[in-house]
């Protein structure tokens, strides 16, 4: 069979729908603070050869998290083009330290694509540093008192 048969030419011209979502590498395992905003940027790219209409962006997030995507929809994305969206993430203020996964979804009538990122929640440590320093100062003072009191006997 010839490679240039009409069937193959027809097949090569078939619409290809390929949507990709890309976060910058540094956003994976990024450290976030409970109750504080963190903004990520995500590139939505149409790698296919046909226009993609009405792309709706959403997020699958852990409980008590707020994820805001601006814009949360893209009316159309022509072939080979891309658009960057801002993703503002606010972990709940009472979230314990640990790793959490946020999945970002892009849905259109033609296709559906998802990407996820693992974020590391770390409490604002200044509070605990002060606690530690306070305990250390008390211990040092206690040692000094013991040293002076028992040392004289």
């Amino acid at each position, binding site marked *: 069979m010839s490679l240039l048969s009409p069937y193959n030419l027809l097949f090569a011209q078939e619409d290809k729908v390929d949507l990709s979502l890309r976060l910058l590498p540094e956003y994976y395992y990024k450290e976030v603070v409970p109750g504080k905003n963190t903004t990520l940027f995500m590139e939505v790219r149409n790698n296919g050869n046909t226009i993609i209409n009405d792309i709706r962006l959403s997020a699958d997030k852990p409980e008590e998290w707020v994820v805001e995507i601006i814009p949360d929809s893209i009316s159309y994305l022509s072939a080979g083009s891309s658009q960057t969206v801002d993703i503002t993430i606010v972990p709940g203020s009472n979230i*314990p*330290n*640990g790793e959490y996964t946020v999945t970002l979804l892009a849905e259109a009538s033609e296709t559906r694509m998802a990407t996820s990122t693992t974020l590391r929640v770390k*409490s604002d*440590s200044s509070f*605990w*540093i002060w*606690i*530690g*320093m306070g*305990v*250390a100062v008390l*211990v*040092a003072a*206690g*040692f000094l008192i*013991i*040293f002076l009191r*028992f*040392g004289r*006997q």
Partner: protein
Amino acid sequence: MIERVHEHITSELTVNTRTDTIFVLTAIFLNLITLGINSIIASSNGDSTQTIVMFTFVALIIVVNSVAEVGLIRGRQMRKKLLNGLLKMYKDQGVEGYYDSSLLSDYTIRYNLFMLTVLFTGLIAIVIPFIIR
């Protein structure tokens, strides 16, 4: 009789040295172990149970280091008394020239350094996990 007393004093000094060594090594070892445990706890998910465990280990550090410090102070005082007795004995026997009395102050400095080491390892074991957290 004086020989018996001399033997008794030297054996007391040996026991005293051994006891003080145990105090210092136990305190430092426990401080380092607690530093490791609390650092692991601090770097993991910080729920309330783990915070309680962390503070329990901090309490353990405080108790063990306090006991070690009091023990070392007592050990230092005991050694001083024993060496004073020994020096008096040497003086009575007319052999005090063989024993330098400045050794007493050297022992005091050494004990203070031991206490400082215990104190600082204890402080590090307390502070580092809170910084990691």
